[in-house]
Structures are given as structure tokens and as C-alpha cells.
């Protein structure tokens, strides 16, 4: 059996200048073809203006067991969120 094309992760920036978002994966023999395939597979409905492709094997992911230590500390830093602050109505929109 022949060797399977490697897997790539596809990230697309939508029409409105937002961040690139992970939309899915696909197989391709190299980056150039991954890019073409991403265009054909993931922008059939005019979804994107910019594409990134990354080999799945090259992604370093946080380990699930670190989920507590990695993300919970920021839960207690409520002062990072605008709603933490009470601004009197008279001041107007801030």
C-alpha cells in the first residue's frame, strides 16, 4: 500500500478581517497543494479571504491534564474584563 498524504490543519480568515479560525483538516502531499486543496474544500461558499495551512504533526498542543493549571488561573483575574468596573451612567459610554 502506498503512503498516505499527510494531514494538514486549515485556518481561514473570514470576510470581515477577523482572526484566522480553525475550520478543519485535509490531506495533501505538501504545503502548496494543501493550500490549493484548502481553497477548494473549505471556501466553496465564499467563506474566506486568507488561508493558513499547517501540518498537523507540527502543532504543539497543550496537554489535556494541564487544563486546570493552564486556564483556571485566569478565571480569578476578573479585573481583566470590562464588566468588573462600575462606571456611573452619567459618565456615558466607555
Amino acid at each position: 500500500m502506498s503512503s498516505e498524504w499527510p494531514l494538514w490543519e486549515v485556518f481561514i480568515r473570514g470576510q470581515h478581517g477577523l482572526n484566522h479560525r480553525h475550520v478543519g483538516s485535509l490531506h495533501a502531499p505538501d504545503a502548496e497543494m494543501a493550500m490549493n486543496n484548502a481553497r477548494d474544500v473549505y471556501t466553496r461558499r465564499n467563506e474566506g479571504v486568507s488561508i493558513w495551512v499547517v501540518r498537523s504533526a507540527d502543532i504543539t498542543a497543550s496537554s489535556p491534564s494541564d487544563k486546570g493549571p493552564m486556564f483556571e488561573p485566569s478565571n480569578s483575574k476578573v479585573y481583566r474584563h470590562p464588566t468588573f468596573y462600575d462606571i456611573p451612567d452619567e459618565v456615558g459610554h466607555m
Partner: protein
Amino acid sequence: MYAQMVKSEATNDDPALLEAFQARVDANEKIEPKEWMPEGYRKTLIRQIGQHAHSEIVGQLPEGNWITRAPTLERKAILLAKVQDEAGHGLYLYCAAETLGISRDEMTEMLLSGRMKYSSIFNYPTLTWADIGAVGWLVDGAAIMNQVPLQRTSFGPYSRAMIRICKEESFHQRQGYDIMMKMAKGTPEQKEMAQDALNRFWYPSLMMFGPSDKDSVHSAQSMAWKIKINTNDELRQKFVDQTVPQAEYLGLTVPDPELKWNEEKGGHDFSEPDWSEFYDVLQGNGPCNRDRIEARQKAWEDGAWVRDAMVAHAEKRAAKRIATE
């Protein structure tokens, strides 16, 4: 359904881990690929998602059968875009299954060797243009019944694939019904074709949901894990109740003399499909089983040199790049 008769796999894991896992599922948390999961959960999902993916791919064939004969340029474009979507949906689902530690090629080999199944419905032929209408209306209609709730399934990649699929599929059933409307309101021959298509696809569509599973242990386990959301009977009932008025609007007759509204249960009473036919089809004795697998086999074998050459060329390019760096 696209995934029929999926047996849930037994699981022999640490009871404490199992309990914690179940608590997460019950709290509607999504399970992600690298997180701990019961072995049975992983295996059942591979089987279910794989079968779903295979159904999309084999499902290209009966509709693809009419792409070259579509009656107008617009119909040709619509049908081609729809069958192309099926390929895309198969691709998304294979990718979801791949996060569980199986490759697309492995799943393909299992499909071709008969170790993995696809939906019974795609073993029926598309004989007239009205069948393309009926497939969109009934087969996609039945599939949507199942896929919409599956957007809430517990496995993250599966759920995300289903969300994308449901969004894209929204036009599939409508285009099928649109064909049926043109046929049912067309010439007498067109209307006859439309009725004939409904006659042939009605019971196979009901079979898509699988036999009653209200007492099935497998089904109970899958439902607890939220990889199955409704029972087969619930979905089938919902499908019939939704479809009957649509048939009436078309002026077509559902081929079931027992069909009638039951005020008390707030739904239709209807005849069961012939389950012996269903099991025959699953055993490989449907009208098109052999043709479908042979078509996939041929595409796979004929394409091998292409896939190999692309890898060989990519390696050459990479080597050249390194040499110039």
C-alpha cells in the same frame, strides 16, 4: 440512518474514570481527542463516524449517476454542487474519525473489504430523473433528522463536523423537493415518474433509521455517551409526520394503505418496512451493493499511481529546497 446498527463496544475501564467521564458528558462538556475516554467510546465512535463518512462517499454514486444527464444547465450545476458537498462531508467526517487514531486510508480499506458498512439506502438505484428529486427530498430529509441533533453530540470533532455539514446541507433537501414540485406539476409522464420515485424510495427511506432499538443495550450506551441522541423510532416517526404533508402538497400518494393520522398520539400510524429486505441489503444483497463497492474500488485502484506520484514529487521538491538552503 447514515450510521445504522452501530454496536457500542464493551468497555473495561477504571470505574472511577468512567464515572468522571460520564459526569462530563452529562454536563454537556465536549470530549476532545487527546482527553481520556473509555476505549468503548473511542471504538464505537470510529465505527459510527467511519460509517457515516463512507455513506457520504458511496452516496455520491447514485446521484452522480445523473450528473451527465441533468436536464438543464442549472440542474446540472445544482446536482454537481450537491454531490460535491457529499464528498466534502465525507472528508470532514473522515478527519473527525482520524482524531481518534485511525487513518483515512485504513477506513477506506475497511470499506472496500466489507469490514465497515455504509447506509443501506445507497444500494438502491436511481432510475429516472425523479429519483434525484426523491433522494434529495426523502433521503436527505431522513439524514437531516439525525444530523441536526448530532450537532450536540459529546465528541468535539464530530459535533463540529456535523455543524458544518448541517449548514451546508440546508439546500440539499430543498433542491430535491424543488425537483419533485416541477415533476408533480409537470406533464402526466413527469407526474408518473415522481409517483414511481416516491413508491420506490419510501420504504428504503424508513429503513434508513434502522430497526426499532427501544430495547437495545447498545443504543442505551450510545445514548448515555451522547453519540446517539434519539431512538430510531422517534426519528422515524418524526420523519413520517414531516413528510406526509409534503407528499400531499405535491399531490402524490405515500405507498402505504395503513397510513393515517392518529389524533391520540399526535402522529401518523404507518406500516413498518420489510425488515427482511433491510437485512438482505446489509448482507450485500441490495440491488446495487456490488456495483457501489466496485465503483469505489476502481476509483481507489485507478488513483493509486496519482497519489503515489504526488508524494514522490513532493519529496523531490522538499529535497531540492533543502539543497538550495
